[in-house]
C-alpha cells in the first residue's frame, strides 16, 4: 500500500501556538533566559537611572527657581508700590501676557479702559513690541542707520514721521538676511494707531501712579515696609482697593517675608548689645568678637534655641518692646529659610549639569543598551542553531522560527525592561535622596517618571526584539544541515 507524495504549502503556525511554544521554551530554559534578562535589566536600569536622576534634578531646579522667586517677592512688590512701571514694561506686558491674565486686567483697570480700548491695545502691542525688540537686537551701526539714536518706544514715534519711515525702508532694503517681524500692512496700521497706543499706555502709567498715591495715603506717613508687614490684613485691602492685582496668596507670602525682614533687622541690632553677644558666645563656645548673626540663626535651628534667643532679647531693654507674639516662630522660619536657600543654591549650581550633559548621558546609556541587548540576544540565538535546525527538519517555516525568537526576545525584553526601569528609578531616586535629602521629593515629577518608565520598558522590548530579528533571520534562512554544521 505505497503512498504517493503530493506536496502542498505548509500551513502557518498560529500566533497562540507559537506563543505557547515560546513560553514553554523559556520556562524550561529558565536559567539561560534569566541571564539574558539580567543583561537587559542592567542595561535598562543604567538608562533609567540616568533618566530618573535627570528628571528629578530638572524638577528640583524648577522648584528652586520658583522658591527663589517667592523669596524675592518682597523686592518686587516694594518697587511696584513705589514707582510706576515704565512704558516699555507696560507694552511688553500687553504684548506677551495672555489676554485674560490678571496682569492685563490690572493694567486695564489702571488705565480705566473700556472693552474697545482693551482690545485695541491687545491688538497693537505685539507688533509694536516685536518691531522694537527687532530693532534693538541689531548692532549699533544698523540701529543708527535705521532709527538714529532712538530706543524703546521712541523708535516707533520716530518712524511715525513719513520722512523717517522712508529713510528706514530705504536703509533696510540692502540689509541682507534680515526680515522685519511685521508685514508692511501691519506696520502701516501700527503707525496710524501709534498715537492712540501711546495715550493708552500713559493712561496706564498715570493710573498706576494714582494707585501708588492712594496706597501711600493709606500708610499715613508710615514706611512702606511697615505696611507690607500687614499685607495680609488692612494694608493688603488698601492695595487691592487702589487697583493692584494682589491675591491673598501673594499677600500672606509678602507679609511673612516682610515680618521676617523685620526680625532679621532685630537680630542684627541685638549684636550691638555686649551682654547678648557674650551670652551667644558662651552658648556657641566662641570668642564674643567672632560672633555674627549667622551664629544666632544657627541657634534658632531648634525650638529651644529660638526660645532661648527670645529670652535673651527680653533682657535687653532697648529691644524688648519689639518682640512680637510671632517673633519666635519668625526666628525659626528665617533659620529654616536660610538653610533652604543654601540648599537651593546647590540645586542652582546643579542646573549646569542638566541640559546638554543629560542628553549625552542618555545617548550613551542607549548605546550601552543596544550593544548589551544585541549581544545577549545574538548569543542566545546562536547557541540554539541546532534547535533551529531540528525545528526546520520537523517542518517549521522560516517565519515561525523568527516569530518564536522575536516573541521570546520581546518577553525577555519586557521582563528586563520592567525590572530594570524600576531598579533604575529606585537607584536614581536613592542617589538624589542621599545628595539632597527630602528636597528630592519636592515637586516630584511623578507623571514624567511614569512616562520615563514606560519609555524604558518600550526601549527594552523594542531593542530585544530588534536584536533578535537579524540572527534568527539568518539562522532560519539556512538549510537545516548548514545550521547544524555551524554549531
Amino acid at each position, binding site marked *: 500500500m*505505497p503512498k504517493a507524495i503530493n*506536496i502542498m504549502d*505548509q*500551513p502557518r*503556525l498560529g500566533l497562540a501556538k507559537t506563543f505557547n511554544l515560546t513560553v514553554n521554551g523559556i520556562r524550561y530554559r529558565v536559567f539561560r533566559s534569566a541571564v539574558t534578562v539580567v543583561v537587559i535589566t542592567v542595561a535598562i536600569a543604567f538608562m533609567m537611572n540616568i533618566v530618573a536622576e535627570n528628571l528629578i534634578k530638572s524638577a528640583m531646579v524648577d522648584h528652586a527657581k520658583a522658591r527663589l522667586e517667592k523669596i524675592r517677592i518682597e523686592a518686587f512688590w516694594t518697587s511696584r508700590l513705589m514707582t510706576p512701571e515704565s512704558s516699555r514694561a507696560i507694552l511688553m506686558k500687553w504684548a506677551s501676557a495672555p489676554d485674560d491674565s490678571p496682569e492685563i486686567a490690572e493694567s486695564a483697570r489702571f488705565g480705566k479702559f473700556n472693552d474697545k480700548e482693551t482690545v485695541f491695545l491687545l491688538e497693537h502691542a505685539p507688533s509694536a513690541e516685536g518691531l522694537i525688540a527687532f530693532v534693538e537686537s541689531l548692532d549699533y551701526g544698523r540701529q543708527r542707520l535705521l532709527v538714529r539714536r532712538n530706543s524703546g518706544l521712541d523708535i516707533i514715534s520716530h518712524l511715525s514721521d513719513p520722512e523717517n519711515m522712508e529713510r528706514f525702508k530705504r536703509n533696510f532694503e540692502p540689509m541682507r538676511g534680515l526680515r522685519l517681524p511685521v508685514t508692511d500692512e501691519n506696520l502701516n496700521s501700527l503707525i496710524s494707531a501709534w498715537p492712540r497706543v501711546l495715550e493708552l499706555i500713559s493712561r496706564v502709567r498715570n493710573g498706576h501712579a494714582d494707585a501708588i498715591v492712594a496706597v501711600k495715603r493709606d500708610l499715613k506717613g508710615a514706611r512702606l515696609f511697615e505696611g507690607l508687614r500687614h499685607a495680609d490684613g488692612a494694608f493688603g485691602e488698601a492695595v487691592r482697593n487702589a487697583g493692584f492685582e494682589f491675591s491673598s496668596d501673594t499677600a500672606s507670602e509678602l507679609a511673612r517675608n516682610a515680618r521676617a525682614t523685620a526680625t532679621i533687622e532685630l537680630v542684627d541690632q541685638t549684636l550691638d548689645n555686649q551682654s547678648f553677644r557674650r551670652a551667644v558666645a558662651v552658648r556657641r563656645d566662641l570668642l564674643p568678637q567672632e560672633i555674627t548673626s549667622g551664629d544666632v540663626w544657627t541657634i534658632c535651628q531648634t525650638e529651644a534655641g529660638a526660645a532661648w534667643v527670645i529670652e535673651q532679647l527680653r533682657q535687653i531693654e532697648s529691644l524688648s518692646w519689639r518682640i512680637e507674639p510671632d517673633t519666635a516662630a519668625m526666628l525659626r522660619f528665617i533659620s529654616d529659610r536660610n538653610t533652604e536657600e543654601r540648599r537651593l543654591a546647590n540645586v542652582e549650581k546643579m542646573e549646569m549639569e542638566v541640559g546638554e550633559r543629560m542628553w549625552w548621558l542618555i545617548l550613551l546609556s542607549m548605546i550601552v543598551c543596544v550593544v548589551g541587548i544585541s549581544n545577549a540576544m545574538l548569543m542566545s540565538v546562536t547557541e540554539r542553531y541546532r534547535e533551529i535546525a531540528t*525545528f526546520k*527538519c520537523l*517542518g517549521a517555516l522560516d517565519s515561525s522560527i523568527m516569530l518564536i525568537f522575536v516573541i521570546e526576545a520581546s518577553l525577555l525584553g519586557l521582563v528586563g525592561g520592567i525590572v530594570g526601569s524600576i531598579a533604575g528609578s529606585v537607584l536614581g531616586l536613592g542617589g538624589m535622596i542621599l545628595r539632597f535629602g527630602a528636597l528630592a521629593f519636592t515637586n516630584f515629577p511623578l507623571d514624567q517618571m511614569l512616562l520615563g518608565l514606560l519609555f524604558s520598558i518600550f526601549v527594552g522590548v523594542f531593542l530585544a526584539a530588534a536584536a533578535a530579528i537579524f540572527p534568527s533571520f539568518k539562522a532560519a534562512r539556512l*538549510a537545516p544541515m*548548514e545550521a547544524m554544521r555551524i554549531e
Partner: protein
Amino acid sequence: MNSDKHNPPLTPSDARDKQNLRVIIRTVRLEKKYVIKDIVTVALKGIDVEIFTGEFISVMGPSGSGKSTFFNMVGGLDQPSSGRVFIDEVDVAQLTAVELAFLRCRKIGYIFQSYNLVQYMTALENVTIPMTFAGLHADEARDKGMRILDIVGLKERWFHRPIEMSGGQQQRVAIARAMANDPSVLLCDEPTANLDLNTGKEILEILQRLNKEKHVTVICATHDHRMLNICDRLMWIRDGEVERIARRDEVNIEVGSIGGEE
C-alpha cells in the same frame, strides 16, 4: 550509467505486489562540494540511484565516504552543488521554502545519530511538535503522540525529558517523532551508532516493524552489520561514489568478507 548494475530488479523478501513498486526517490548525477577556505572537498561525485516505495535500503560505507551527505541531500536538508533529487518525481530544488517545509513535515521522517531531541521538551512534546507544525489540534496531537509512543514502547515515560532517558529511549522518541505525521520515507543517519548492541537491536527491530507494518520506505545510513538481516537492498558508497548496490539475498553469502573489510 549502467542501470542494471546500480539498480538490480527488486524482489522484496516478503511477497509484495510488484505492481505497487514505484520509484519514490531518484537522484541524477548528484554532486556536493564543500568549500572551506578555498579548499574544495568533493563529498559526492555524481550519484544516480533509484529507491522504491516500501523498500528498506541500507547505505553503507566507511566514515567520510559521503553517506551522511547523501542522506542530507535526499532528505532535502541541504542543497546539492549540482545534479538533482526527485522525490516522487518532484524536483526538490524546484520547491519553495514553504513547500519544502511541508515535505519535511509530513513526507519524510528524520532520525539522527545524535537523536536531536529538543532538550527542554518532554518525550510527548517532542513527538507532537511536528504535528503542531502540521496544524493538528492540540488534543488530537496528544492522543496520536501517545499512540505512537506506545508503538515504540515508551508510553509510560511520556513526561520524561531527554536528559532523563537512556540513549536507546531517546532514539525511540526520535523514531516516534519521525513517524508523527505518517511520512512516506524514513531517513536514518546511523541510528544505532551511539547505542550498545542490545539497544541497537531494539531500534532496528522497531524500524523493521514500521517498514513491514506501515510500509514506510526506510533509508538507513549505517555501519551496523545487523542491518543486513533486515534490509531489502544494500548500497555501498566509497569516496563519494556508488560502489555497489545489491539485494540482500545476493549479499548474504559474502557477509564474512564485508565484515573483514570494515
